[in-house]
C-alpha cells in the first residue's frame, strides 16, 4: 500500500465517473491532435510539391483544371507547339527557362501510367532563337535566389532548376519509381509503348507525387506515340520572380490569349491558406479546451472531494499530512491528465488517419511527438482544474466532518 496505489484503487473504483470527467479533455485534445496531424502532413505535402516543381509559371489550355498543380496537365486539352516560339520571340524579359510538355494517361499491360513528353535542355539550347530572347546565363543570374515571393513559399530558386532534364534521346525514356516497379524495368531495359520501342535511360528518385507514376519520354516521341503532332498540354516556365511581380503573367497572357496562365503560388496557395486556417483553428481549440477541460476536471474534483470528505477525514485522522492530501489529489489529477492525453491523442490520430485522405487528400500517419504534447497539456489542464478543490480538501478538518455524513 502506498499513496499511489490508494489513488489508483479509488480511480478504478469509479470508472464511469472518471470517463465522463475525461470526456471534455479527450475530445478537446483529440480535435487538436487531429487537426495538427493533418496540418503537419498537409504542410509536408505542400513542401514536397514545391520541392518537386520544375517551374513557377504554368501555361495551360484555357479549359484545364488547376485544382492540383501536379495533375493539371494530365488530361488537359492541348495547345499548339508554336506557343513556345511565340513566347521566345516576344522579347518578354524574365523568362528564365521554359519547357513544353505533353502529358496523357496511357495503359500498358492493363495498368495505367502517365506518359509525359518533355523537351530536354540540349534540344532547347540548340535553338538559336532562344539566345535572342535573353534565355541564358545572364538572366539566370539576374534572378536573386531569395526574392520575397520565393522565400515566403519556403523554397529557393535552386530547387526549381533542378528538374530540368539535360538530354533525352528520341528512343529513351525515364521512369518514375512506381512506374519502374510495376513495369519491372531496370536501366537499359526495353519498353514498348504502342509500337515504339524505348530504352530505359534512368530511374528517377522517389518524389511521393504523381511523378512516380510517370514515364518521361522525348516530347517528339510522345507526340508521335499519342498521335498528337505539334501539340502540347502545358508549358512550364521558370519566370524570374522579379519579373513575375513586374507583370510577367499579364504580358504572357497578352501574347497567348486563349490559355490559362498561373503561378505556383496561385495553385498551392489554397493549400497554404488551408494550412494556416487549420493552425489557427487548433490554437482556438487549444484555448477552448484549456478552459473547458480545466473546468470539467475541476468540477469532477470538486464533486469528488465533497463526496470523499469522509475519506479525507479518515486519512487525516490516521495521520495524513495536509501535504499528503494535496499529493493524493494532484496525483489523481496527473493520472486523469495522463489518461486524457493518451486517449485524446489516440482519438485525434485515429480521426486524422481516416479524415486526412477524405478532407485534405493526404495520407496521414501518427506523430509520436504529439503524444508528448497531448499528455503534457492534458496533465497541465487537469492540475490547473484540481488546484482549488485540492486546496479546500486539504483544509478539511480531520474526522470532525465525518460526523456530518
Amino acid at each position, binding site marked *: *500500500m*502506498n*499513496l499511489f*496505489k*490508494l489513488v489508483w*484503487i*479509488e480511480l478504478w*473504483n469509479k470508472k464511469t465517473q472518471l470517463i465522463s470527467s475525461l470526456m471534455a479533455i479527450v475530445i478537446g485534445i483529440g480535435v487538436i491532435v487531429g487537426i495538427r496531424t493533418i496540418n503537419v502532413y498537409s504542410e509536408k505535402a505542400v513542401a514536397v510539391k514545391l520541392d518537386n516543381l520544375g517551374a513557377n509559371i504554368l501555361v495551360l489550355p484555357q479549359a484545364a483544371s488547376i485544382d492540383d498543380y501536379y495533375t493539371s496537365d494530365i488530361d488537359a486539352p492541348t495547345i499548339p507547339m508554336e506557343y513556345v516560339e511565340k513566347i521566345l520571340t516576344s522579347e518578354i524579359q524574365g523568362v528564365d527557362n521554359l519547357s513544353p510538355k505533353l502529358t496523357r494517361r496511357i495503359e500498358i499491360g492493363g495498368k495505367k501510367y502517365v506518359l509525359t513528353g518533355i523537351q530536354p535542355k540540349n534540344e532547347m539550347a540548340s535553338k538559336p532563337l532562344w539566345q535572342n530572347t535573353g534565355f541564358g546565363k545572364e538572366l539566370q543570374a539576374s534572378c536573386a535566389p531569395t526574392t520575397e515571393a520565393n522565400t515566403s513559399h519556403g523554397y529557393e530558386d535552386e530547387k526549381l532548376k533542378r528538374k530540368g532534364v539535360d538530354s533525352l534521346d528520341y528512343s529513351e525514356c525515364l521512369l518514375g519509381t512506381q512506374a519502374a516497379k510495376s513495369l519491372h524495368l531496370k536501366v537499359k531495359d526495353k519498353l514498348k509503348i504502342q509500337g515504339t520501342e524505348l530504352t530505359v535511360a534512368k530511374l528517377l528518385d522517389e518524389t511521393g507525387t504523381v511523378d512516380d507514376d510517370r514515364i518521361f519520354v522525348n516530347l517528339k516521341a510522345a507526340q508521335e506515340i499519342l498521335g498528337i503532332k505539334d501539340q502540347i498540354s502545358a508549358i512550364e516556365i521558370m519566370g524570374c520572380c522579379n519579373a513575375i511581380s513586374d507583370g510577367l503573367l499579364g504580358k504572357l497572357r497578352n501574347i497567348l490569349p486563349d490559355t490559362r496562365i498561373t503561378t505556383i503560388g496561385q495553385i498551392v496557395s489554397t493549400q497554404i491558406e488551408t494550412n494556416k486556417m487549420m493552425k489557427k483553428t487548433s490554437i482556438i481549440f487549444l484555448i477552448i479546451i484549456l478552459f473547458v477541460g480545466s473546468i470539467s476536471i475541476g468540477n469532477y474534483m470538486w464533486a469528488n472531494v465533497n463526496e470523499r470528505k*469522509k*475519506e479525507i*477525514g*479518515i*486519512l*487525516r*485522522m*490516521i*495521520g*495524513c*499530512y*495536509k*501535504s*499528503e492530501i494535496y499529493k493524493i489529489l494532484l496525483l489523481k489529477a496527473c493520472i486523469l491528465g495522463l489518461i486524457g492525453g493518451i486517449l485524446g491523442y489516440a482519438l485525434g490520430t485515429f480521426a486524422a488517419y481516416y479524415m486526412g485522405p477524405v478532407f485534405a487528400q493526404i495520407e496521414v500517419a501518427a506523430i509520436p511527438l504529439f503524444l508528448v504534447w497531448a499528455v503534457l497539456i492534458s496533465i497541465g489542464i487537469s492540475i490547473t482544474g484540481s488546484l482549488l478543490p485540492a486546496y479546500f480538501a486539504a483544509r478539511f*478538518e*480531520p*474526522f*470532525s466532518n*465525518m*460526523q456530518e*455524513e
Partner: protein
Amino acid sequence: MNILHTENLSKIYHHKDGLVNALKNISLTAEKGSFVTITGPSGSGKTTLLLTLAGLIRPSSGSFSLMGKNLSCVSDSELALFRRENVGFIMQSFALIPYLTAIQNVKLPLALIKMNKAIQQSKAVEVLKTVGMGERMNHLPRELSAGQQQRVAIARALVNAPSIIFADEPTGNLDPKLSVEILDFLKAINQKNNITIVMVTHSPVAADYGNVRIHLDNGEINTMTNKN
C-alpha cells in the same frame, strides 16, 4: 507516568446561531495503561473531549499533553505525525475507506510511515488474525458485517503499535453480544499490550470496563473515579 494530562481545557464552537461551550475547564490525568471511559448525556461534549485529546480538534483554551508531550500549540503536521506514530482510532461508524479491502485498510497507517511492502503485508495479516478476521482479509467493508467491520477498524488502530487508542462509542452500532466481544478484546489489549484506551460510551456495561471513569455533563466533568 501520566500518558494523558489536561489543564483547564475548553472548547467553544463558533456556530452561526451563537457560541457553543462544548467543554469547560476540563482538567484530568490518566496513567499509562489506563482504560478511560467517558460517559454523559447526549450533547454533553464526550466526542468533543475525545477529539480534542486526540489532537483532531484544537482546544479554544487550556492545554493538554499526550505521552508527556504538550500538544496544545504544535503545528498541524506535528499533530499528524504524532497521530500516525502513537495513536489509534476506533469510531462508531468504523471509519473504513469503502473502496479498500480489509487488509488494505489495515495497511494504510503503515503506508503513511512508508513501511516496506512485505512488512506491511505480514504485520497486517498478523493483526487481522488477532482480531479474528484472518478469513475475510480481502473483503470490502460493505461485504462485512458491522461486527466484522469494527474488528477491521480495531486491527487498523492496532497495526502501528500505538501507545494510546481513542474510541468513540466503538460498540454503538453493535448488538450486546458483539459489544461484549469487542469490549473484552479491548480490555485484553489494554492489559496485555499496556495500551492506554480512552473510550466514549453510552452504555453502562461498557463504562464498567474502565478503571478511570469520567462522567461529563454540559461540558463539565461531573464525576471522575479512579479505580486502581
